[in-house]
């Protein structure tokens, strides 16, 4: 199962991960989206927010603006990050799942 976290602002990916308040959490099993929910992290303390994000144990974070501190810390905690991406959060998630399906198909063929 893969856990994906996307910071969301008005249906779009938040401009900055460190100032985002809403997070879309999606869980994917194989080729299927098995769970999707939105949570709020309202702390103004950005380091606290980073710690909470890490505690969510995501496999992947898809976000737009990413600061040095966030980027390095997430890398150190082995969280994959696809940053500087903007667009509709759900559409980006769908695109990711679609690409994942194609990847899996290719893997199976090989």
């Amino acid at each position, binding site marked *: 199962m893969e856990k994906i976290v996307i910071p969301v*602002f008005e249906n*779009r990916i*938040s*401009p*900055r991960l460190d*100032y*985002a*308040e809403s997070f879309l959490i999606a869980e994917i099993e194989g080729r299927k989206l098995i769970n999707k929910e939105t949570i709020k992290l309202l702390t103004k*303390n950005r*380091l*606290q927010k*980073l*710690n909470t994000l890490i505690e969510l144990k995501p496999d992947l974070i898809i976000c*737009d*603006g*990413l*600061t*040095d*501190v966030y*980027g*390095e*810390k997430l890398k*150190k905690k082995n969280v994959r990050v696809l940053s*500087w991406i*903007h667009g509709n959060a759900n559409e980006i998630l769908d695109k990711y799942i679609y690409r994942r399906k194609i990847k899996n198909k290719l893997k199976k063929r090989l």
Partner: protein
Amino acid sequence: MNTEVALQEERKIKIAETHSTFILNSIADGVFTVDENLKITFFNKAAEQITGTAADKAIGQYCFEVLRSNICENGCLIRESISGSKTNLTKQVTILRNDQKLIPVKISASSLKDENGKIIGGVESFRDLSTIESLRKEIEGKYTFEDIISKNHKILDIFSILPNIAESDSAVLIEGPSGSGKELFARALHNLSFRKEKPFIPVNCGALPDALLESELFGYVKGAFTDAKKDKPGKFKLAEGGTIFLDEIDSLSLATQVKLLRVLQEKEFEPLGSTATIKSNVRIISATKNNLLKLVNEDKFRDDLYFRLDVVKLKLPTLAERRDDIPLLVEHFVRKFNHKMDKNIMRVDDAVMEILMVYGFPGNVRELENIIEHAFVMCRDEEILVEHLPVELQQLKYYECKKRKIENPLQKSECKIILEALKRNDWNKEKTAEELEMHRSTLWRKIKKYNLLEEINASALR
């Protein structure tokens, strides 16, 4: 006739548009306009420079996806202007560029209206405050964790625990060598805590003789001693509600240690010459470059005070232990001194970086800053070269490995690192292997490989 008038009008409008674009592109402030949906419709040259985004890329995008300011989600000025709730708004914010740089800017926003007074969008101008902000921070010392330049894992580990430490009100002891940034961490802790609106008072305990230090810390009342003409509040009083930072805590005399212990235990103190007790609500962050526990064992520091101060300990690494941060720090200091000295140094020569990467930095980050400042004074061009470094660094034989005829650049760097580590550890192979985190036998093999034996043998004779 009517068509001709219309054409003339159209021409006039076009000329006016060209003029206004020309004017907007020649000013130093960034300016952009948005439609009602916050999509950018105009982006001037200065906006391109400050944000690092070209106008053709920005136009058509949502403004929050180009500026990425800290108020885009909460408290966006242009949104408030368009909604008509507020007009002519100004605020200081930070924007995040594509290259991960945070730029402080002052923004002003207002709505755009058509000839009928209907709101059709908004306009925002913003001024780069990098220079002013860096100077202000230096003067006011309002540093946050984002001012600590590091990608090193030891520092990042400290970042993880900073919020918890900041939220608690426990005493903190910061251990770290000179120039490793103890005060910067203390200020970052204070600015993360609920006490951030209250004062942060730094005191260097080693800078004052004991008798003076006591009056400096706790204050005195009129008549306490011959020259005490009026009451003077001490640092604890000045720090009320905030944080007091006691640097070089190990230099406190045993008598002052007792007084400090009382503040920690009872949260109260008496100014010199006074019988009245003053209640104190101050968080204590202390710092030392020495091993305080060792001083306790030698009976030079009270154990009860030590255990009160050392509720939470932060151990800062030396710059040599976070060598991976050197390029980042060099870049930061170059930017800082470019602002401060109004210079335009664009590059640091590879040979300079090679020297800095192998140098021992006994003075840590402060020494690196001084080296870059020295280079800035000497450099009249756009690039810092070896000749701009302090003489003792120029003399650092970074060519030594060239003499050993090692051509592979990776091996050359490895040879330099080993050689410098050997020098730093007085040619002690065990200590060197420990510092370089390699086995002694591996170090020995590399010493032979790079022909460093001769150097080691010669050192024994010096």
